[in-house]
């Protein structure tokens, strides 16, 4: 009871410190909670989107019919699905009532497809959810809208699929299970029961047979385990086993970006809070040295003092954790109401039990770990400290200091690993933050040395300010470090966001493609130009495409680099297949839309006398395991062409433009047999249909793929991602500013004693103000600049190593944050100095 009384009186007596410490830790923890809520909500939202794309949780596909018994036995031994449905997809030429025929993709489904999402059909001019069971009862079909014109068919009329006529009952308005891949033909849905009547599937037919499953799972890893177990059990090379996340590479890439970024923001918020807390506690403890001396002289042992202070820290930590939880419980539902309609996904504000425990643990352990390095230094204090005036020199860095600092860093590392769900990523976060701390400390030492050595200004107040900063190097460096790291973390998130956003930047709507066209022959280019001119369309990135086979890498046969043997396992077979495929080469001078050089030099103009340079796409070069300087030899229809890799190119996939893995300069391949590939920018409905018909009629071999729906789908996911990035950045900026505010505010309030001394020595008000202004300016300008500089270094490495994105310098936040820091600090200092100047010096000294 007495102990509680003591703690309460300490809280009241040091309310400025207690309040700021609690606020600081609570902000860090609350940011952590909020980010957790958002992370879960966004992950769930994007996860459910990938489920929509597949229409299920899990699937198997093969070119061979899937035999029920075999799969059921395998599933029985592993995990029993809650529901399953079968699909058969095939291409066929079908005919409309007037005899007009068209290639379509037939998708024969069972009554319970899809498990997630729905197929919206338009029937009798009304949109409704298509009930797949109706497709089973009679020979009816739902068709994609473009087929109405292409087959010259109306709702209610018949189309001939194989040997059977089907009545067109509805058009498909929206298909959640459309998938993320494009198909060269519009889709027709029929019932699986009716597929047999068409007689399309028989020996010699090519079709995709799929089984889709709905599986209850708590952790996504369960699905991955199931996938791996099934791969072992069903060793069929032709069988594809996939989870809903495998369906879209883009979706999983977005999830990775998002998870890594959110992890980084969470850790940054906690680091910020830890730095603020450590600074505040250090300042508080320096003030407490004299009372500690009194406790020691009254007979308390150093260990008891240590425990007393630790318990006080623990209590502050518990209060902070409780505050964060109250925030979580009360404000989160409010946040849900506020964000409703604004967010492209539903916020799940329910705090997970795990999160609640984590906050309590972080509050308790975190507060102790924040204070431990500083607390361990009071072990050295002796009661005679009461006789000394200068107290900070007694805070020596002993073994306990380094040990507790080490434990604190290990704790942060473990937390980073847990947050990032990866040892590498977590270690990278922690390693870079430690490096940042060392760099800022190094910069701070250099500045102190420069200030000591060179007289920059002759003014007395400046000299005083410099003398005061240089006089206590450890104390000054800790301020530089706290503010510098605060500025670093505050700027880091917007900086990384700029890099990721660059990767996600999509061209304006008008530049997004409506169609991709390929197999355009050289002698068809003029005819195509005539058509595009007629419809006032400008083709985008029309590129020649030359088919080639890779024969040698650095004079070594490519086939020798392959795996040999008859009995290859599934993975080896797939790898073998990918290595044996031919490659599409292209040529041009300069970079295309959304391309940038990652490493190396631009392609030079073709020079007959030297070996030509080639450019490789980054991921492709990693797959081939080649680097700049390597020589690749291609076989182009019997003619060998050699090229040396001079650059590795990055391709921004969100531009949706045709791109190539291997590029030659203009001039080398121009004579080789080639076709052209091109994209058609966004065009409206009627023109779109007329243009498509015109191309099909004039250039029958040219494949024209409508990518409008695909682009729209991916764009939705990207916009959601960009929104999340923006929101997280704002949270981190707010947390950063609050921490910096608490540090500078506390620092300003600690000046009262110095002011009293200066006043007693006869210093004028203007001189005292000028002295403090110089002090604030020196500290904030240098620590702000250090923070920003180190932030650039860190963001460069993080962009390259973790986010695999181009490093983009964002200058707005650094400039505004440094100016904001200086101005706010000057204002706080001015107010605090004014307040102290108006109080009698004797009163200040007595306090």
């Amino acid at each position, binding site marked *: 009871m007495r102990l509680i009384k003591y703690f309460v009186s300490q809280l009241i007596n040091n309310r400025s410190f207690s309040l700021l410490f609690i606020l600081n830790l609570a902000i860090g923890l609350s940011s952590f909670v909020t980010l957790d809520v958002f992370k879960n909500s966004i992950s769930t939202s994007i996860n459910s989107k990938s489920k929509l794309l597949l229409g299920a949780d899990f699937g198997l596909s093969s070119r061979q019919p899937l035999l029920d018994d075999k799969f059921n036995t395998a599933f029985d031994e592993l995990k029993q699905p809650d529901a399953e449905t079968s699909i058969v997809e095939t291409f066929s030429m079908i005919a409309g009532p007037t005899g007009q025929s068209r290639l379509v993709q037939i998708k024969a489904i069972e009554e319970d497809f899809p498990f997630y999402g729905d197929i919206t059909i338009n029937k009798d001019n009304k949109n409704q959810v298509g009930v797949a069971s109706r497709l089973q009862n009679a020979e009816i079909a739902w068709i994609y809208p473009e087929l109405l014109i292409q087959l010259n068919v109306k709702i209610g009329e018949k189309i001939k699929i194989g040997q059977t006529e089907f009545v067109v009952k509805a058009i498909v308005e929206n298909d959640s299970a459309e998938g993320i891949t494009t198909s060269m033909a519009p889709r027709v849905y029929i019932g699986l029961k009716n597929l047999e009547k068409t007689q399309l599937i028989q020996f010699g037919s090519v079709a995709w047979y799929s089984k889709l499953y709905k599986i209850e799972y708590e952790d996504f890893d369960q699905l991955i385990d199931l996938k791996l177990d099934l791969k072992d059990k069903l060793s069929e090379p*032709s069988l594809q086993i996939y989870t809903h996340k495998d369906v879209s590479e883009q979706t999983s890439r977005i999830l990775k970006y998002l998870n890594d970024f959110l992890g980084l923001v969470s850790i940054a918020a906690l680091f910020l809070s830890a730095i603020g807390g450590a600074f505040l506690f250090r300042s508080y403890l320096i003030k407490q040295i004299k009372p500690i001396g009194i406790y020691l002289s009254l007979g308390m042992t150093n260990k008891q003092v240590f425990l007393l202070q630790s318990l006080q820290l623990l209590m502050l930590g518990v209060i902070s954790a409780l505050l964060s939880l109250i925030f979580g419980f009360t404000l989160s539902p409010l946040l849900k109401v506020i964000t409703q309609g604004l967010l492209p996904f539903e916020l799940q504000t329910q705090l997970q039990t795990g999160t609640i425990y984590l906050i309590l643990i972080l509050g308790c352990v975190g507060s102790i770990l924040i204070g431990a390095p500083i607390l361990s230094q009071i072990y050295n204090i002796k009661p005679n400290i009461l006789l000394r005036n200068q107290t900070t020199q007694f805070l020596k860095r002993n073994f306990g200091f380094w040990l507790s600092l080490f434990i604190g860093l290990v704790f942060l590392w473990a937390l980073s690993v847990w947050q990032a769900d990866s040892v590498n990523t977590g270690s990278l976060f922690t390693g870079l933050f430690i490096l940042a701390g060392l760099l800022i400390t190094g910069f701070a030492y250099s500045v102190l040395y420069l200030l000591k050595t060179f007289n920059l200004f002759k003014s007395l107040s400046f000299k005083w300010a410099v003398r005061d900063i240089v006089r206590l190097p450890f104390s000054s460096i800790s301020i530089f470090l706290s503010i510098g790291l605060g500025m670093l973390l505050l700027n880091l998130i917007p900086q990384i966001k700029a890099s990721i956003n660059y990767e996600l930047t999509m061209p304006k709507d008008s530049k997004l493609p409506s169609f991709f066209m*390929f197999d355009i*022959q050289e002698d068809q280019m003029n005819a195509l130009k005539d058509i595009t001119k007629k419809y006032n369309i400008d083709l985008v990135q029309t590129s020649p495409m030359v088919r080639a*086979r890779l*024969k040698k890498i650095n004079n070594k046969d490519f086939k020798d680099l392959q795996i040999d043997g008859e009995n290859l396992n599934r993975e080896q077979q797939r790898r*073998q297949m990918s290595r*044996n495929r031919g490659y599409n080469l292209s040529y041009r001078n300069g970079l295309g839309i959304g391309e940038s050089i990652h490493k190396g030099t631009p392609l030079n103009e073709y020079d007959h006398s030297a070996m030509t340079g080639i450019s490789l796409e980054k991921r492709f070069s990693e797959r081939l395991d080649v680097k700049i300087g390597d020589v690749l030899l291609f076989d182009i229809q019997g003619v060998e062409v050699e090229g040396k890799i001079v650059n590795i190119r990055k391709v921004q996939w969100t531009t949706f433009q045709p791109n190539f893995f291997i590029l030659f300069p203009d001039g080398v391949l121009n004579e080789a047999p080639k076709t052209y590939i091109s994209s058609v920018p966004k065009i409206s409905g009627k023109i779109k249909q007329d243009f498509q018909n015109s191309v099909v009629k004039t250039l029958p071999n040219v494949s024209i793929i409508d990518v409008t729906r695909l682009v729209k789908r991916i764009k939705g996911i990207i916009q959601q991602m960009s929104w999340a990035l923006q929101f997280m950045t704002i949270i981190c900026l707010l947390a950063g500013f609050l921490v910096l505010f608490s540090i500078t505010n506390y620092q300003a309030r600690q000046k009262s004693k110095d002011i009293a001394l200066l006043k007693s020595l006869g210093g004028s008000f203007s001189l005292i103000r000028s002295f403090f202004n110089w002090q604030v300016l020196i500290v904030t300008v240098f620590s702000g600049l250090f923070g920003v500089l180190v932030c650039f270094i860190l963001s460069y490495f993080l962009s390259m190593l973790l986010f695999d994105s181009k490093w983009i310098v964002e200058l707005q936040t650094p400039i505004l944050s440094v100016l904001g820091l200086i101005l706010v600090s000057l204002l706080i200092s001015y107010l605090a100095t004014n307040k102290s100047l108006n109080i009698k010096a004797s009163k200040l000294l007595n306090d």
Partner: protein
Amino acid sequence: MKLFFVLALFIFIAPLHAKKIVFLGDSLTEGYGIPLDKAYPKLIEKELKKSFPKLTVVNAGSSGSTTASALSRLKWLLKSKPDILFIALGGNDGLRGVNVNASETNLQQAIDLAKNNNVQVILAGVRIPMNYGEKYRKNFENIFIRLAKKNKITFIPYLLKGVAGVKELNLPDGIHPNVKGHEVIMKNTLPTIKKLL
């Protein structure tokens, strides 16, 4: 006696003459998914070299190519002065539902160009899977029969005879032959090519 001497000289010299065969095709000819030296043109070259050591084979198979590319590609290939042109194109036309008349015209142009350059032509028939519908399949199959008849060229009715649809002879994608499938193609086509040599 004189005639006998000329004939004997021809029989003796013919195998030594450096004949060149060009295979103009798509992914089936390119050997999609298998090593280049296991694709049927290379297997044919190996077999023929036993009797014709100086013979060379050019595999001008190109994945995804349609009959529309036949003419321009042939112009490029004629620079290497081939003696025999083996055309195995059309599969992608069929799979993409291209108008059969357009495919026929494209192939006819390529045959004309080859003949005008004194190149012997072998035309391999290509069929499309059953799922494309009986009518389209028939129309498509007839292109090759008509072209062979009209141009009086050597004709192999079906390139993938005994291979298509047989799981053991195809890659997991069910469309492209595997190494064993290419061996079957080689055995099917080799006698016809030999006759021309």
